């Protein structure tokens, strides 16, 4: 049985931006322009993370635009043919996916697996088992992998949870979203407040589960500041090791998209919702949580390793409906519709080339920047300069200057000491320059889109 272990935070963070270059790639790299080598697609090691999409839900929440299959409240997921046929397809997908290693090399074992959805807790543990088996056969696991699963209140009981943990799942992400009955109703959740408390009780009372996360959504329709503070207090009280605080996005094609427009009643105004974000940041920090990514908080050492893969721009597998993968410098999204996904898997088995998207140097620079600026660690300008050139770093510093002055961007030296604006200006002119830049919390994070798109404009003028 796999058990969760604490991993060394420092190690994980230092390795997140720049994958080490494997010796066998070196000769190849020498021939390539030096600007792209550190992040070069061909040089990236094979993925050690896998995302598995289990799209089944009781019903679609009003804000949700993920690829989801709503089973309905009466269906029994254990026996539903839709579930079993999907899983067969998923297993075929895993089996047919070619790892980016030659036969002689051994595939590095998987470090993280993430079951997302949908509501993965709806599917019977046997299915989780078969998927983990398939992954194990295909890629093998490291000694203590992080295996996360999203679970929704009301979709599991103690027994199911125990079974899941038995299989090797060691991290649960609980989709609570709110601690107000009326809000849960208003956003179309399939569970009530009672189920929320029950689920928290089950998760916290389970001695073999130490690492669990809670999801909350801010800026829900009719949500007030009091409600939001209440939710945060309840969450802190439950003391999860990790918290994901999502700001509601009104997506086109969702029920909310039809009903509401952002910033208008009953949605909170923009400044209210900015206020919510700041409250969360403040309350959770006071409660000992690290705001380590725009929407993620954790206790020391409980960062989501799987998500760090994404934010470090490292490669990962994606299996299942609508999932995205990043292998060998290729971004690839599987179809979001079941029928097209079926054909897609068919083609994958036949070996027909899929249209995927190769990330070139400029795009890579954008990816690295976009992802790392989401984190509290920020952008490592030294490795960025090595990969994409000093000149780009310089123009980036120039372009973001005014935001350093305004306090939206924070510059740091190698020891992660904050630089004043004056120091930043001086450093920018020096040869070794600034070591890190990050967005400030909460002001910079709140305007992250604005700031990142400004940085995009610098990379691609």
């Amino acid at each position, binding site marked *: 049985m796999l058990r969760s272990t604490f991993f060394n935070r420092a190690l994980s963070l230092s390795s997140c931006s720049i994958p080490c270059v494997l010796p066998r790639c070196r000769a190849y790299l020498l021939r390539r322009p030096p600007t792209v080598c550190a992040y070069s697609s061909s040089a990236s090691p094979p993925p050690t993370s896998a*995302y598995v*999409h289990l799209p089944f839900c009781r019903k679609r929440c009003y804000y949700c635009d*993920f690829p989801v299959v709503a089973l309905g409240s009466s269906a029994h997921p254990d026996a539903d043919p839709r579930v079993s046929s999907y899983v067969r397809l998923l297993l075929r997908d895993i089996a047919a996916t070619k790892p980016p290693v030659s036969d002689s090399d051994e595939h590095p074992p998987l470090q993280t697996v993430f079951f*997302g959805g949908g509501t993965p807790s709806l599917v019977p543990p046997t299915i989780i088992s078969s998927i983990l088996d398939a992954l194990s056969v295909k890629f093998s696991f490291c000694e203590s992998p992080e295996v996360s699963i999203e679970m929704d209140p009301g979709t599991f009981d103690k027994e199911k949870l125990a079974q899941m943990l038995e299989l090797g799942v060691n991290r649960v992400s609980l989709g609570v979203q709110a601690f107000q009955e009326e809000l849960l109703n208003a956003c179309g959740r399939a569970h009530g407040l009672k189920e929320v408390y029950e689920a928290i009780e089950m998760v916290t009372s389970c001695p073999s589960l130490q690492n669990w996360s809670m999801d909350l959504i801010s800026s829900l329709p009719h949500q007030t500041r009091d409600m939001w503070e209440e939710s945060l207090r309840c969450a802190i009280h439950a003391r999860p090791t990790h918290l994901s*605080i*999502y*700001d509601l*996005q009104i997506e086109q094609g969702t029920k909310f998209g039809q009903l509401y427009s952002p910033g208008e009643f009953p949605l909170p105004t*923009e*400044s209210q*919702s*900015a206020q919510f*974000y700041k409250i969360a940041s403040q309350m959770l920090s006071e409660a000992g949580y690290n705001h380590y990514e*725009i*929407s993620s908080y954790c206790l020391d050492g409980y960062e989501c390793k799987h998500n760090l*893969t*994404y*934010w470090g721009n490292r490669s*990962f597998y*994606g299996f299942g409906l*609508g*999932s*995205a*993968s*990043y292998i060998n410098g290729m*971004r690839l*999204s599987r179809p979001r519709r079941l029928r097209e996904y079926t054909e897609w898997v068919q083609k994958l088995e036949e070996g027909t080339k899929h249209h995927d*998207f190769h990330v070139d140097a400029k795009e890579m620079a*954008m*990816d690295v920047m*976009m*992802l790392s600026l*989401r984190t509290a660690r920020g952008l490592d300008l030294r490795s960025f300069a090595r990969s994409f050139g000093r000149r780009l770093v310089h123009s980036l510093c120039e372009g973001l200057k*005014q*935001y350093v002055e*305004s306090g*939206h961007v924070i510059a740091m030296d190698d020891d992660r000491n904050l630089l004043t604006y004056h120091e930043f200006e001086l450093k920018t002119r020096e040869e070794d320059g600034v070591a890190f830049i990050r967005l400030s919390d909460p002001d910079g*994070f*709140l*305007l*992250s*889109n*604005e*700031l*990142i*798109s*400004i940085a*995009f*404009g610098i990379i*691609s*003028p």
Partner: protein
Amino acid sequence: MSAATLCRPVALVPRSSAPRQRRRRSLASDSLLPVGLVSCSCSLSFSPSAGFSGPRPRLRVLCRAAGTESKTSADAPSPNVDDPGRDRLLKVPISNIRNFCIIAHIDHGKSTLADKLLQLTGTVQMREMKEQFLDNMDLERERGITIKLQAARMRYVLGNEPYCLNLIDTPGHVDFSYEVSRSLAACEGALLVVDASQGVEAQTLANVYLALENNLEIIPVLNKIDLPGAEPDRIAQEIEEIIGLDCSNAIHCSAKEGIGITEILNAIITRIPPPKDTSESPMRALIFDSYYDPYRGVIVYFRVVDGNIKKGDRIYFIASGKDYYADEIGVLSPNQMQVNELYAGEMVLIQFDLRNDNCLCKDDKRYVRLKHWRLERCRGATESAMQMLQLKERFSEDVATEDILVLGQLQLEPSAPCLLLSLLLEGWFACLTDAPLILLEFLLCLYQIWSLLPYWCHVCGPTDILISVASIALSRVGLGLSFNSVGYLSASIRSVADARVGDTITQFGRRAESSLPGYEEATPMVFCGLFPVDADQFPELRDALEKLQLNDAALKFEPETSSAMGFGFRCGFLGLLHMEIVQERLEREYNLTLITTAPSVVYRVNCMDGQTIECSNPSLLPEPGKRKSIEEPFVKIEMLTPKEYIGSLMELGQERRGEFKEMNYITENRASLVYHLPLAEMVGDFFDQLKSRTKGYASMEYSFVGYRESDLVKLDVQINGEPVEPLSTIVHKDKAYAVGRALTQKLKELIPRQMFKIPIQACIGTKVIASESLSAIRKDVLSKCYGGDVSRKKKLLKKQAEGKKRMKAVGKVDVPQEAFMAVLRLEKEVL
């Protein structure tokens, strides 16, 4: 003359003397024999003599003629059914020429009437007919307006007498009134078309007065009598009362239904006097339009007032002092017709200038042009012409290497010599690029034939091949564009400035003593800056403006730079419609994307040091301390309106700082209001306001009255403390506050919020008179980065980044282009 003479093989001509002199001499020789029409078999060969530089192409033309059927006899020329329009080019006596134009208000049916006239006279065939035939710009057709004046020649037979009617179609909009004055000066009469349901409008009135000043015979025409609301009698009375024209013989017509068109044509002939016969005077022709053709240089539209002009004439432009050889002359009917003039002998086209040896140079552009023209015009009517065509195509493909050309079976019917000759000529042009002498020899032997050209043309119909020969011939036989006709010419004029509209053309050798009274040069009244959105398009914009200017003499421009907009041009227009039209043509015809600054007028600034500066650009206005006073242009505006709207129009006049001058009841129900008001106030949406306040019933006309001192200030806009020059305006002090408030409010709407709070201020000097503040963005964050799907998120951010690129940075603030644009519209609303 015998066939032998005609087809005498051309011997080599030693290249002893200068080609030019040699040819002159041969052309000058008059010992020519008449040529009979014969079928012949001829073999012609010639080759350049030794000693020529460059390649030495040789050409031998073997022609075996087979006299098959002879189509028509010489004394019974049958009109060619393929080309019904050509008879209108037959020469008619001066007493049978009528030059006229049509005066009408917008939508009173001028273009429709013109269409009908063209149709009825067979000028335009049914299948070619389209609505608004004379408006050939896309923009004109779309908007239903006439921008450029057009001319058309029609032939009409009344009482067995053929008449030549020249119609000059004119724009109706007030902005283009200078075009109207140009056309009026070229006519002896005018049709006054009035909508029988609406009555006389201000613009019509102004033009009628213009016409009366020019001593034009005016024929009142009441149009749209088919409409249920038509009251021709009342309108006729109105015309009598307002203009004082006798309307007892006004023609009732409906252009749409084709009622009364014949009456109009008859009236044109019976009532409009023919032009005066001044054919013996030295040639004088008035240029009324010109445009630039990339292949032919400047094409000049003119009316011959005295004397006549022949192709090949050395012409002299009195005002510009330039002289040219007229390469090509033709009529407008309504398209340029170079072919048919042979019949009438009035028009001649010269496609190439034989006096210029350069044109014989193969790598010269002229040569290329010649070739193009040839291929284009190779639409022969007769079978032999078709044959020639095929041969010619082969011929012109690779002439340098092709030594022998076998003409095959040619019908040597009457036209044959011409065809043959033209072929030879062409062969000569194409192949013997460095042997002009051979042509000279040819010219000598062919001259006889040319003297009979018009006759042949009659017989065999117009073929393109004839033209090139004929044009040369005609310069000898003395046929040319005679006086009192309207035509065009091309003379390889490189710049429109050399052939300004209003200039008089005369003959170089026999200059007229005085020039004709020209037109007043159009003075631009409205100015605005035009900037390319993409700075790289600046050279393209310049080229486009230059080209447009060739076609639109009223357009003025000069380079301008602006801190916010980069490089662009300050352009002057006749009015707002003109401005809009130019912008649209630039964007449409030249594929440019433009930013336009607020329209302004030319102010006169009296400085402290006694200087007077003309200033149309607010950003160039001298500092407040340096200026003593500002004068602005005033216009006299006359509005005609049904009496129930007098009140609201007076209100409008007051609002626009107007000065009431007089009011007259022109009929019981209609009044005319005269105001003096600043042009700047009219430049905005005055016309729109006039129309909306009177439900569209009022019409207006304006004329410049002079400069007057006004209490004007420069209103600046500051965004985040940075002045934004393109948003500056000069306004009257009393209006500054309203404009300032509206501007800042509008900008607040249009500028996207940024990461910090931005003050938007309107100031006079340092005094802030209106202020708004744009709040900062509080939150712009995509919190969920789902399942590693980076690309979706990235797409959104990239889009956001793209959006930023389309903005102009004013200090730290990104101002979208739309803000600059919409502020212009707002100006109209407020001013």
